[in-house]
């Protein structure tokens, strides 16, 4: 496939709020599909149960919110509205269950709303531990995972043993590797991997069966090597401040067109939430728990105990030779917005320039943001500082 074909395929998946791929997959495989909210869930278990994990990240800027708004006050972020809109308009009917990870109060409460509003569906709140001691938090989490495994065994009428789990872990490790390569190529040569394309590929990981996604990423990597793309005089930036509600595509384009090469981001973070391979062995549930406890990435919904605040971001800036940081957070996102001043302080201390703005998944205008990040880019180019 050519790059343009791969991108077109991803665009189609991205904009298909009716989840045709999922319906088709279910029909072909005669199996169930389990949805999950951001950031992260252990998709390996769902996969091992022979089910399709489907990441739901709101509805972007294309769906008119009519019913979803009836459930939320104006000071609450946008993603739960669009998720309810998707649910009430039947767009999520093809999902046999929905998992709600413990990331914030809004998504937490949405799990209970889902229990009431979609009583015939499987709903599970994934309570991630904020205690990162393996024998305490690790044990608690392993029990959560075991519970999920048991529930899915019941739902799927299919045993999920060590072999099935290990097989899925191997596939997801391979997927993580392909994604890592993709990110590495973008930070090495950002002009060759526009973020618009990378982002769409990442969004495809929410929908596609894992091995299909891995192949797609690999194909993209080989195809993009053959394209001749011109390098521009852009600055290298890291975009951070999101773990759940995603920026609209237009916003990502606007950032790129304002003179910024995005060399790292925290979008679709669930697909690279654990930064090394999950071990294959006798106790795959425990291995998944350990992966989460020991090797999870830093994000604002996770309690960071030992490390100094902002360390992770500072390290990324250095590793990737980023010249600045853009904080792009969803409006009304308490964890991300409360985290922001701490990260900003860490950057200031190290003289790393940054700029910040808020968005909603349905933001309709980018001109102001483009102006802002364009100025940011220019000032770094001219004076090396913002």
């Amino acid at each position, binding site marked *: 496939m050519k790059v343009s074909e791969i991108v077109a395929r991803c665009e189609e998946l991205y904009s298909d709020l009716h989840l045709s791929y999922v319906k088709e997959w279910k029909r072909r495989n005669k199996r169930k599909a389990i949805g999950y909210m951001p950031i992260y869930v252990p998709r390996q278990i769902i996969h091992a149960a022979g089910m399709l994990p489907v990441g739901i990240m709101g509805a972007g800027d294309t769906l*008119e919110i*009519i*019913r*979803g*708004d*009836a459930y939320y006050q*104006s000071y609450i972020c946008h993603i739960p509205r669009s998720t309810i809109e998707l649910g009430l308009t039947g767009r999520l009917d093809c999902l046999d269950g929905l998992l709600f990870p413990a990331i914030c109060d809004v998504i937490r409460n949405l799990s209970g709303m889902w229990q009431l509003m979609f009583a015939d569906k499987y709903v599970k709140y994934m309570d991630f531990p904020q205690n990162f001691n393996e024998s305490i938090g690790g044990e608690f989490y392993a029990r959560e995972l075991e519970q999920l495994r048991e529930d899915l065994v019941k739902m799927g009428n299919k045993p999920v043993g060590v072999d099935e789990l290990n097989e899925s872990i191997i596939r997801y490790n391979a997927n993580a590797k392909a994604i890592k390569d993709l990110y590495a190529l973008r930070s090495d040569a950002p002009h060759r991997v526009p973020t618009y394309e990378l982002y769409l590929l990442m969004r495809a990981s929410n929908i596609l069966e894992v091995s299909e996604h891995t192949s797609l990423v690999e194909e993209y990597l080989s195809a993009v090597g053959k394209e001749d793309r011109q390098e521009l005089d852009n600055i290298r930036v890291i975009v951070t401040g999101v773990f759940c509600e995603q920026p609209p595509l237009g916003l990502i384009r606007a950032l790129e067109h304002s003179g910024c090469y995005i060399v790292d981001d925290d979008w679709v973070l669930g697909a690279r939430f654990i930064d090394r391979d999950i071990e294959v062995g006798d106790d795959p549930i425990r291995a998944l728990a350990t992966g989460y406890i020991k090797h999870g990435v830093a994000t604002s919904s996770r309690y960071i105990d030992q490390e100094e605040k902002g360390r992770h971001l500072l390290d990324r800036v250095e590793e990737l030779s980023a010249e600045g940081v853009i904080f792009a957070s969803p409006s009304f996102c308490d964890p991300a917005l409360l985290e922001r001043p701490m990260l900003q302080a860490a950057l200031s201390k190290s003289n790393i320039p940054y700029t910040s703005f808020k968005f*909603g998944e349905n933001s*309709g*205008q980018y001109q102001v943001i483009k102006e802002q990040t364009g100025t940011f880019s220019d000032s770094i180019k001219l004076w090396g500082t913002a």
Partner: protein
Amino acid sequence: MECYIGVDLGSTTTKAIYIDENEKVLGRGITNSRSNYELACEIAADEAAINSRFHMLRRKLAENKQAGKQTSELMDWLTCKFKLAQHFRQVDALEKVCKTIVDEWDDKNLRRAYKAALDSIFDTMRSEAEPMFQPRVTARSDFFRDIASSHYLDSAELLARNGDISFDRLTGIFDKAILLVEAESFATAYDDYLDFASAETIKVDGYKVLRDDIRRATEYAATIEFNAINTIGTGYGRQTLPFPKHQIRSEILCHGLGAHIMFPATRTVLDIGGQDTKAIQVDGKGIVTNFQMNDRCAAGCGRYLGYIADEMSMGVHELGPLAMTASKTIRINSTCTVFAGAELRERLALGEKREDILSGLHRAIVIRSMSLLARSGGVRNEFTFTGGVAKNEAATDALKMLIVENYGEMTINVSPDSIYTGALGAALFAKRDQKGDLVNVDLKKLRKRVS
């Protein structure tokens, strides 16, 4: 005759309604709320009283053998001439105040020049009045301030163009004077106006033979005594009324009952006013069973349209008609008033047509009220749409479409008198809910008492 009065003190307009003991509407009155709620209340009630007199006048005329056949035409003439008389009285008052202002200046030459200018302005104003108050002529506005200001400023501009007269100075005089004139009610001299109306109407071709019928009817209308048994106030400014508590009702309840009276099968009411939007559910008797109002955000109420109009340098009443000419509806995501301007400019910069964007903006507002409706318990048959925005055809069309899409086919009522819904409900409460010691609220004395 015995009557009951409902007064709705809105943020932009104040409405009053008189009903009789059979709960039939006698008359309606409306005025702009100004900064003085008490005065607005008094004027609206005066207007409603006049409107009631006209209601009785029509009945009286209809009783006559000959005149009865031409009641409608006669009423048109009588109404126009009545308004003309009232208008002349207001013009006189305005002229007087303007000249008093000039009289206080020190410079004699200046005084002379500006008095002459004022003479010319007011002569023109009077000569322009007659053609405006004719049957089948649509008034540009019902409010004296609007009519007077456009005439005055037009003349002032002409004068300033060819002389030593300053336009700004003339505008300054007007701005000061109109405030004082607005602080007066011109309804009290209704008997003089009726006399004038009757005399002028008789002069019209073919009506001379009806002279006696006309005179009898107008004299009757001038002498009716309205005895207000109970008055109830509602609306945004109701707390400022010096009414006892049991003579004040929340606008939610009044809107619910008012909508029920206008359309008895109403179960869901949506009212989009200037300051807020209300979704109300009522039972078969018009009793409110549930309601929701918009939160502190102005998105989705009339004021949002005001911002948009300002942003486009248009009058708020021009938005709907322009939106109706759209060939497509642009998706607008921000109903946030703060962002709407930015989104609007961005869409314009992208080359989108104004009417298409406006069509999208109307839809965006209506979508906000859809969620309010959903919060209050959904939309049930029949659905009644009221409030200032109900006059806007683009909004009404968008609403109808969304109601049908989301709740199926049903009867959707939009009344041209919907602006009076709250006042009507209040009047009904005045009739039905007479408890405690009724205080006969003398609306005329309100102002004095407050000042």
